[in-house]
């Protein structure tokens, strides 16, 4: 055997080995590529599902928080509760003020009543003075009656009766005066007690009003804080939603990956079919041209042309 024959045999053996290797390895590669496609698809579906649930939960949390703050979904709402409470408590304050006003009016009536008792007292004193004058008049009449003797007897009886009436009038006048003084003192006591009570009521009412305003201020502060938190939550949620929108754009890589891998896998299958069928392999240029026909993405064509395989940027829309 000469050297040339030996070399030719070695080349034939090598070709046969490559052929056998390709027949065996190509289906394995194709299966591996297919498995990767399946796994990325599964993972991408799971990821998008999780993001969808995240968006739903985020929206539910924001809706609940907004409802708590503003009562937008028919709930109580902190702002509405604050408004209702303010209205209710203001009506309590108004009722307290009205009650105080009534008491002040009553006190004024009592003061007016004490004026009457003074007038009554004066009138009683006048009655007593009149009685005293009448008594003096009766006494003079009796003296004059005695001086005229028998003829004045009848007149002396009348004068005696007048004196007796003036005595009784004077006593009645004194009684009225005493009663008027007693009533005046009683009214004075009532007035003093009423003034004390009114003063205490005024203090209690002012204190109640202060407390109500303080509670409402605290409540308003908390409500405003809640509104600020809700606004912040809404802003954050919108930020997260935008982030998720970006994630959703990026998750579309799987579709492109899947298509590219499918084309690679199909080309491997095609090569394996040629080898298994023992048919002559086509011209490499024709093979590559046929492969290029299967491309569906810009980066496949870029790679094929030896250019930068930059991925497609979102989003290109053409309206017809």
């Amino acid at each position, binding site marked *: 055997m000469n050297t040339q024959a030996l070399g030719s045999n070695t080349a034939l053996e090598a070709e046969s080995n490559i052929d056998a290797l390709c027949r065996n390895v190509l289906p394995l590669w194709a299966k591996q590529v297919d498995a990767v496609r399946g796994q990325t698809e599964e993972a991408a579906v799971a990821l998008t599902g999780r993001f969808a649930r995240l*968006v739903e939960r985020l929206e539910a949390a924001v809706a609940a928080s907004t409802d708590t703050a503003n009562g937008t979904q028919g709930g109580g709402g902190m702002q509405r509760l604050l408004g209702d409470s303010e209205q209710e408590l203001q009506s309590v304050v108004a009722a307290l003020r009205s009650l105080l006003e009534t008491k002040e009016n009553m006190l004024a009536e009592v003061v007016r009543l004490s004026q009457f008792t003074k007038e009554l007292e004066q009138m009683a004193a006048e009655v007593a003075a009149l009685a005293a004058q009448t008594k003096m008049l009766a006494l003079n009449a009796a003296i004059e009656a005695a001086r005229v003797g028998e003829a004045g007897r009848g007149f002396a009886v009348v004068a005696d009766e007048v004196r007796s009436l003036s005595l009784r009038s004077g006593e009645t006048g004194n009684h009225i005066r005493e009663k008027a003084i007693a009533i005046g003192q009683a009214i004075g006591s009532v007035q003093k007690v009423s003034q004390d009570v009114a003063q205490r009521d005024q203090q209690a009412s002012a204190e109640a009003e202060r407390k109500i305003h303080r509670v409402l201020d605290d409540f308003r502060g908390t409500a405003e804080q809640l509104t600020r938190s809700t606004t912040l939550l809404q802003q954050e949620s919108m930020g997260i939603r935008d982030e998720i929108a970006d994630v*959703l754009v990026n*998750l*579309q890589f799987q*579709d492109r990956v899947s298509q590219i891998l499918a084309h690679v896998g199909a080309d491997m299958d095609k090569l394996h079919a040629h080898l298994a069928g023992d048919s002559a392999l086509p011209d490499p240029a024709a093979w590559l041209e046929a492969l290029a026909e299967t491309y569906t993405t810009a980066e496949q064509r870029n790679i094929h042309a030896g250019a930068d395989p930059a991925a497609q940027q979102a989003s290109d*829309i*053409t309206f*017809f």
Partner: protein
Amino acid sequence: MPKTVMIVDDSASLRQVVNIALKGAGYDVLEASDGQDALAKLTGQKVHLVISDVNMPNMDGITFVKNLKQLPEYKFTPVIMLTTESQEGKKAEGQAAGAKAWVVKPFQPAQMLAAVGKLILP
């Protein structure tokens, strides 16, 4: 009454992404995995807009749109092609088949919603 959009794509994850974007905006969404599946699912349904991929097994997107336009009830239903294809020749095929817009993947959910809002039947 929410409007219904059908998404036709052999990629389950892509269908889900479209589904999330549209449902978030208040649309009802129907899903189909290729042209054949879509034609079967459209029967007896009221769909206001269709979003379809181009490269799919069993029946590709261009053939599906041509078939869809033959159905009297879907003759005027707007179709948006959603594909990795960005070649002008393919776009022209889509336009000739009756599509109203061509969106190259990956798409921005907000832009897709704007396109759907612009094209969907009243």
